[in-house]
């Protein structure tokens, strides 16, 4: 059982994430249509496809390399609000894994916390505003707890993924206070925030990459 995510784990993680989001893109776009302007899936797929092309040519020497590539790609082709925010999110994972041979759970905890800070600094969203932060925060808390409790990698990732999923699901009950969804108010109740759902998919792909 791996205690860190090697570059090839990261490859599987990223591939899995891209595949799932591409597959669910119509669903995500529909969520954005009902709560924003209906371009979320398209924005994501464009950036993810380009990321895949960029990653295909690159040699992933460090754990963070692929995230660095995804970050650049998202920031280069950022559509809408989520593009640049995800670009900066991946960037923190890239930074933490920049010189490392693999991601330990502590590193994942650190990257998540940094990413959360970055997204909050840039987007000013707090927990409960119905944004991706509502999935990031519980994932971060779960990781910190797992590291504190000395949990293994798989266990920690499983906790993070399920916390993120729950956080995302709970956005269904939130009225938006940031981004376009703040314009539609209560009429988005009952469906989750697409950005939060995407964060949940990100952790699920991590969990699946280590076979957990």
């Amino acid at each position: 059982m791996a205690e860190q995510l090697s570059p090839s784990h990261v490859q599987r993680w990223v591939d899995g994430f891209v595949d799932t989001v591409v597959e669910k893109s119509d669903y995500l776009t529909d969520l954005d249509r009902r709560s924003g302007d209906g371009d979320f899936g398209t924005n994501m797929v464009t950036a993810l496809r380009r990321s895949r092309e960029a990653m295909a040519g690159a040699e992933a020497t460090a754990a963070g390399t692929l995230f660095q590539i995804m970050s650049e790609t998202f920031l280069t082709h950022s559509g809408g609000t989520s593009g640049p925010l995800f670009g900066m999110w991946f960037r923190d994972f890239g930074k933490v894994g920049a010189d490392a041979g693999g991601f330990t759970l502590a590193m994942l905890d650190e990257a998540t916390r940094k990413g959360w800070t970055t997204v909050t600094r840039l987007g000013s969203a707090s927990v409960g505003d119905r944004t991706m932060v509502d999935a990031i925060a519980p994932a971060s808390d779960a990781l910190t707890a797992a590291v504190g409790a000395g949990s293994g990698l798989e266990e920690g990732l499983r906790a993070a993924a399920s916390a993120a999923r729950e956080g995302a699901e709970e956005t269904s009950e939130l009225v938006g206070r940031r981004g376009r969804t703040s314009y539609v108010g209560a009429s988005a109740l009952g469906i989750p925030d697409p950005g939060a759902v995407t964060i949940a998919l990100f952790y699920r792909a991590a969990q699946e990459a280590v076979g957990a």
Partner: protein
Amino acid sequence: MRRQFTNAPGDVVSEALEGFAAAWPRHVRLHDDPAYVTRADPARDKVAVVSGGGSGHEPLHVGFVGTGMLDAAVPGAVFASPTAVQIRAASRAVDTGRGVLHVVKNYTGDVLNFRIAGELLADEGVDSEFVLVEDDLATDTGDGEGPGRRGTAAVVAVEKVCGAAAERGADLAELAALGRRVAAQSRTLSVALAAGAHPGQSQPSFELPGDEVEFGVGIHGERARERRAFGPTSELVPQMVSPLVEALGLGRGERVIAIVNGLGATHDLELYGVFREVERVLGRAGIDIARTLVGSYVTSLDMAGCSVTLVRADDEVLELWDAPAATPALTW
């Protein structure tokens, strides 16, 4: 049916940039992948002034690249922010080691991408500062809630004044303070008589009844919060100017720069008629129009309409306003 001179609508911006750069070879250079525009003759040893935003507002911003104004402009797609990587590339290209001033109109996407660019640049050791232009009085909610006032035509004043100060050697902190001061002392109101149409779309973005105007409109084809009665300039212009005077708290004897700006399809004859009314309203209020700019500088595609901007001016601002500039759209 609204029609335009274009090839494929998706190529409008890139083709226009090519044409623009080819038309002004002595002033600008176009860079590709990512796209941005710099001075043909790069400045040395000064703070770089960089702006950008969605396209469709031409001559803003690319038309203001040149001596005495911008070192680089970063164009997004029509009405969409440029990306952070574009902004970073442009900023890197023009940084002389003294840092980069970003002049940013207040829109979520622009703010986000310029902020991100600032963080990316910081990681590379490039200093940058961020001046937010938020002059549109129509979006002033009074409280601090929501996205705040939009950035519109006052950006020309901020770019002109900061560009001149940068040319004179001001450092990054001074420039940022100056830009913020000018931005804080600027307010704009805009009125539309007819919406523009996105390239490739035959319908304008909204329809107006013949007896109404869109009052307090923005520069992205969106509707305003309010419709008011259409009328002669002598009735419309006071409704634009008086709230600006009040919002800026302008008193008798104070000086302003007045900008009457066409939104794209409004003729110079009309703009000069509007300016005449602006002069009358300010004259009655005892406010001194120290400088004037009348023309189509910050457009909203082919929207029929105009905006009035007042910028409270002191000696320093006026001196910088008067300083020479040589750009495709503004030269003196």
